[in-house]
């Protein structure tokens, strides 16, 4: 397997991981200080429920670790990080989308007014927006995995 491709992908994963970690740090900071969201970006991007950090932090950590393992020439762990980080990021995005959809259905059932803003915030928050990038990364890392699985165990 050419390590060049893996290096590029891991670097992208590292950058994406940093965004996840950034969202976590901001969510914790804003929760502790109870500060109002100073910009539109923060308002939409940072999840309001602090419990989301338990989901987002490991995704960021795992994605960033991919580059670390490439630099240590550990191809298996690097690809594992891409698959796991990308996979969980994708699942988090799907579940967040389902939550938004559930909120719409719930509002309809309860006869409440549909809040477009609430929907937008739900779809743009970190686990959803970054999840699309994680999804692309996950798809690409599957290609790398397919090449890796033809490798004999002893050769690693």
């Amino acid at each position, binding site marked *: 397997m050419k390590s060049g491709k893996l290096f590029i992908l891991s670097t992208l994963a590292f950058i994406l991981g940093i965004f996840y970690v950034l969202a976590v740090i901001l969510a914790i900071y804003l929760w502790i200080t109870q500060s109002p969201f100073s910009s539109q970006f923060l308002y939409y991007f940072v999840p309001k429920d602090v419990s989301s950090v338990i989901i987002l*932090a490991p995704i960021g*950590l*795992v994605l960033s670790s991919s580059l670390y393992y490439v630099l240590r020439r550990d191809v298996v*762990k690097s690809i594992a990080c891409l698959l796991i980080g990308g996979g969980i990021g994708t699942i988090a995005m799907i579940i967040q989308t389902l939550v938004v959809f*559930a909120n719409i259905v719930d509002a309809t059932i309860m006869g409440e007014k549909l809040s477009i803003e609430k929907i937008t915030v739900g779809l743009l928050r970190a686990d959803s927006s970054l999840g699309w990038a994680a999804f692309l990364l996950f798809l690409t890392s599957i290609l790398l*995995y397919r090449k890796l*699985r033809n490798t004999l165990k002893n050769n690693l």
Partner: protein
Amino acid sequence: MVGKRYVKVALTGVPNVGKSVIFNKLTKGKAWIGNWPGVTVEKKVGKTEINNHEVEIIDLPGIYGLTAYSVDELIARNFIVEEKPDVVVCIVSAINLERSLYLAISLLEMGANLIIDLNMIDIAENEGFSVNHRKLSEMLGTSVVPTIAPEGYGIEELKEAIKEAILNRKINLRIVNYGRDVELAIEKISSLIKKLSFELSEKYQARWLAIKLLEGDEDVTVKVKRTQVGSIILGEVEKLRRRLGEKLGDVGAYIIETRYKRASEITHRVLERIKPVKITITDILDSVLTQKILGIPIALSVLMLLFRFAFEVSTPLVDAIDLLVNVWLHDLIAESTIFPRWLASLLADGVISGIGSVLIFLPVIAFFFLGFAILEDVGYMARVAFIVDKFFSKFRLPGKAIIPLVIGFGCNVPAVMAVRGIEDENDRKALALVAPFSSCNARLPVYLVIGGAVLGAYAGIAIASMYVLSIILALIVGLILRSTLFKGPFTGFIIEMPPYLTPRLDNIAFKTWERTKRFLFKAGTVIFLGVILIWLLSVFGPSGYLGPEALENAALLKRSWSGVIGHYLSIIFSPMGWDWRSSTALLFGFVAKETVVGVMGVLYGVGEEGLTNVIAQYFTPISAYAYMIFVLTYVPCLATIAMIRNELGLKYALFALFYEIVLAYLLALTVMGLGHIVGVV
């Protein structure tokens, strides 16, 4: 055996060999579930028809051997010895043959009419090897049927083999040769048993009994001791054991080791490498998922996602059921003029509310078990248990304890249900009793209202401390229970790491339905009756019938039995400074913690919205914090108690009820005491 109409077939195997899938394939999913007598181990029985025989298939617990140390293993072996099934099907994993063969050998030694179901042959081939099933059959002296359970491959052949085994019983007692000295001893003891005890030789295979006696098996020793000739046989066994011990050291260990060697020898002779070993998806993913630094955060992330899926995605269904049953149907009955007023209230506030409080749990439970079944079938739950095992073992709890404890943060009902996945009965009982300490979603509104109203800027920290405390409590109480009430050997961690597999829709749907159904019918009844009891306590008082108005009128409710009990409770709670209203609210909290805030609103005469402003007058910061701790620790809700009753029986449900209340009281009292010592009131 020819012409026999009813046949018993026992299904056994080590955990994670696909036993449930094969059971479902054989019975076509038609099974009833109960418990084995006297224990809390699940018993699954199904029926099928093979060659005009009505076959009852009994799913024995997943086990590794047939020792007397584990309840599951005792159940399996007692069933085989006492019920004498016509056929025993041992499911053997082609990818972990040696461990599975140890069990198969133990079954053969017992005299079981055995069939080997060699499952997962496809995964073995993917991993580069195959099992020569003909050679395996020759070596074991039994039929060996290769299967790929999820695809149904080999199931018809398995049925055919069962049919054949019913007609031609085959046993192979001498599958292991223990060497000249031990074999002579076995021969001597078995001859003695045959000669002296008709009772023992009729019930057991004399050779197996002899091996077990030499092995020092406590259960078998006790059984032999109870017979009239027990002392003679045991005296001879002791003599032989001593003599063998001088040559071999620990005779029990020698016998087990020889059995393992035989399993290993057979494995080496039947395993064939068919292609070079290539790296698999399991190797790749496990390189990170089972690692501590990344594995633990990933596990938390995945469990949190499961949590969100169960609790947030199911919201519309919960609200729809709530609207339909608790509002629409409730109001329809309550305002109906067909019934007398008392009956309308009984039906609406008792029966309908009872049904409603069961049904609103359903979507969350079903969604949770759907997600859980997927994670289980993929093979991930085994990894989660593996990575936290070392930490949990310090509290004498298995790694799998993480699952109910984390689930409990959402709802304690599925948390108690999740203990079923724990193999050891002592672990399972201890966990079912501590899982309710996990601070569930329903407790949060109480923390928010009380903390927000009284603790001001410290509310956030106080609420966060509830979650930390809940885990500390669960671990410490778990350790105490495992060291006292559920004392027993800590079996440590034995788990098969199954390869990662694509989950099968039918299997997931079946598991989800089975578990949801169990909640609906078992816990539902208790919840339903509990809600009606609370209704009766609220509309009746010492002066007689007060009417349904009491449910919405503080003055009337004060005169009801609930109010009277609340008054007595307030005497008990006086060291904490809680008045009769907050004490009565705790009584309603038995039904569901969600109701505590609502009842407080009624009793303080302000409704839920105005509660925050009023409550500060009735609580000091320390009494508020003590109240929060009490809410965290005392009985989570009726549904959880119903689930504990379902899993462990009435005795333990009552025990949970009692010890949680006592513990909650003591903790609240301690907090008050500490508050006074440090000068916080």
